[in-house]
């Protein structure tokens, strides 16, 4: 056994230190090139091998998971930062490849201008936007720029999950690839479809979509729309220009047509909305809660853009480093139940729009080196926590902790990251109260709150909440009149606000949140500054729950004996 101080005989006298890896080393891959970057401990790659390795990893992640079907519309969420920029460039490269290795989906880019939440001046924001547009034009994909302020005009339906049939088996994927290849050989019907989808693109951007619009769009619409051939659409040039020429635009079309139809850019946010956003973020007491809120709002906005423009996948640029940090952060934030969704390759919580993370095999070091060596442009925009001290938020603290550990033990990040890969998205079975499938209002994960579980700190948190207001359907006293007897029960005096006991809007919102979001909302003294769609949806949900409860009473009475019926 190894013991401290054990004598292993004569130590090699003055063993020469292992030679420091220097430039005399060769690339571990080709054994020829001059190494440029050390990837894992000791693996030095030359420039060319590093590029091949990097590109291969991106394509392998997509190939392995087989989630993105040929011809599918995929929205790339681009922040201007290194990882998402690198992702956009990988897609661009993948589309310009020769046919056999070519990526076959139809990309679009969304950029969310978060300047208001980060306290940027209007002038700085305009400057940043100009920089962003320059890059977007170089890339040439259809793009959508939205300001974070637009959360104030989101429809409540964005918070709903639109169920979709299971994504299909590997057989389905193969069939889709085959039919896509066939379609490519028969371009005529394809063109027809292309113009159809083009028309839709023309119509949607100008008007801010209403709730009805989003709802009206069945989840499958995205898919049918995604079918048109990519070949034409994915040329480096925005496809619509040629299209408009070929097909004389109708009056309606020209009217709705933004610069090039593929691009949407919202009107600059009104001063009132910017002020409202300022007020919202200003009212949040901690940086931790601010970061979480920003993430929530951003996700909703991207989801909305994806839905209104018929994208069925959203690609996020989270790197392996970022995801490992996120995993630990989310554990600390009480989001342990959702780790598999929050950090996995794919996230199906929204139903019709699936979030995928194709950069999850790349470390930030690889990303930074790739972007530097191959001149991938990225735009630096101050984040909400720029220049914040290390202990300003759980996010910052966890990042510093992980990176410092990583500096001493170079496999920490990859170990954590590999753990995240193994997490299984098991649907929570009916142990929680409420109907199955009840979802958190904010993060739209299946609720992890279990009021029966009162022995734990978790339960204590919930029971504390239930003291402020009666728990969701008070099962013991279903017939408690909620109003004075004078008002007929059938009319439901509190129709508008739900049952009396839950008239408090704050309690009504809080009870619809998962544990993590509840904790987070504690740092929001008032819910009033929240965007209306959240509050509206909360109200709708509690009304629905109340109606459902009412109905259930009747059902119980119906099936029960007469004694109970007489009671009421």
């Amino acid at each position, binding site marked *: 056994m190894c013991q401290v101080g054990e004598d292993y005989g004569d130590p090699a006298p003055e063993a020469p230190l292992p030679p420091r*890896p220097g*430039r005399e080393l060769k690339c571990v891959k080709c054994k020829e090139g001059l*190494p440029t*970057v050390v990837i894992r401990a000791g693996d030095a790659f030359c420039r060319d091998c590093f590029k091949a390795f990097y590109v291969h990893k991106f394509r392998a992640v997509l190939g392995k998971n087989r989630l993105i079907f040929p011809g599918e519309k995929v929205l790339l969420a681009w922040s201007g*930062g290194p990882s998402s920029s690198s992702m956009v460039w990988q897609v661009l490269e993948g589309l310009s490849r020769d046919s056999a290795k070519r990526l076959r989906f139809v990309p679009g880019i969304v950029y969310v201008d978060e300047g208001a939440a980060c306290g940027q001046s209007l002038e700085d924001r305009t400057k940043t936007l100009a920089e962003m547009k320059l890059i977007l034009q170089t890339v040439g994909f259809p793009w959508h720029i939205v300001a974070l302020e637009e959360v104030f005009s989101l429809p409540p339906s964005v918070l709903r999950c639109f169920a979709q049939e299971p994504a299909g088996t590997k057989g389905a994927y193969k069939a889709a690839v085959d039919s896509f290849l066939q379609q490519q050989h028969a371009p005529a019907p394809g063109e027809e479809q292309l113009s159809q989808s083009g028309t839709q693109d023309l119509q949607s951007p100008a008007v801010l979509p209403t709730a009805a619009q989003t709802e009206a769009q069945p989840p499958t619409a995205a898919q049918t729309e995604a079918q048109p051939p990519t070949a034409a659409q994915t040329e480096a040039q925005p496809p619509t220009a040629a299209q408009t020429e070929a097909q004389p635009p109708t009056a309606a079309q020209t009217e709705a047509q933004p610069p090039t139809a593929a691009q949407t850019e919202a009107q600059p946010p009104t001063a009132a909305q910017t002020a409202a956003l300022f007020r919202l973020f200003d009212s949040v007491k901690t940086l931790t809660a601010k970061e979480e809120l920003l993430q929530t709002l951003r996700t909703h906005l991207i989801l909305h853009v994806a839905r209104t423009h018929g994208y069925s996948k959203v690609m*996020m640029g989270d790197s392996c480093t970022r995801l490992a940090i996120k995993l630990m952060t989310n554990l600390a934030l009480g989001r342990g139940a959702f780790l598999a969704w929050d950090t996995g390759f794919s996230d199906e919580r929204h139903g019709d729009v699936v979030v995928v993370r194709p950069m999850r095999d790349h470390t930030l070091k690889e*990303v930074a080196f790739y972007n*530097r060596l191959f001149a991938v442009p990225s735009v*630096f925009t101050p*984040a909400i926590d720029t220049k914040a001290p290390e202990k300003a938020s759980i996010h910052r603290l966890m990042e510093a902790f992980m990176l410092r550990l990583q500096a001493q033990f170079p496999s920490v990040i990859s170990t954590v990251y590999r753990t995240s890969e193994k997490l299984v998205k098991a649907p929570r079975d009916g142990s929680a109260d409420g109907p199955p499938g009840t979802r958190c209002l904010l993060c739209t994960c299946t609720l992890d709150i279990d009021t029966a579980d009162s022995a734990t700190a978790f339960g204590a948190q919930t029971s504390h909440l239930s003291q402020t207001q009666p728990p969701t359907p008070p099962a013991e006293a279903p017939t408690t009149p909620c109003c004075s007897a004078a008002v007929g029960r059938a009319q439901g005096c509190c129709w508008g606000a739900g049952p009396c006991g839950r008239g408090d809007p704050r309690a009504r919102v809080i009870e619809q949140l998962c544990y993590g979001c509840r904790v987070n909302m504690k740092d929001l003294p008032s819910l009033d500054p929240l965007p209306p769609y959240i509050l509206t949806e909360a109200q709708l949900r509690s009304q629905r729950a109340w109606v459902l409860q009412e109905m259930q009473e009747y059902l119980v009475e119906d099936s029960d004996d007469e004694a109970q019926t007489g009671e009421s």
Partner: protein
Amino acid sequence: MAAPLSVEVEFGGGAELLFDGVKKHQVTLPGQEEPWDIRNLLVWIKKNLLKERPELFIQGDSVRPGILVLINDADWELLGELDYQLQDQDSVLFISTLHGHQMGS
């Protein structure tokens, strides 16, 4: 006695925010007794270039974890990290991969 060196120091990934937003700095390191290595350079940077919050850039005698160092566009891990001896006309790049310096996704 090492002769004065002319070196390009560059900051990226948001690290430039700690340097008045200036990315590229052409600097002349004065001649000194011991040769200039990265360890000395960091001390010099802290004294002469860094405008605020040194703890966000330097930790101990090295850079804060999460900040990458490239010497002439190659990983400093290949070149002996802090012990690399600077040559005239070298370029040293510091890229922050930290979130506060950069947006995550």
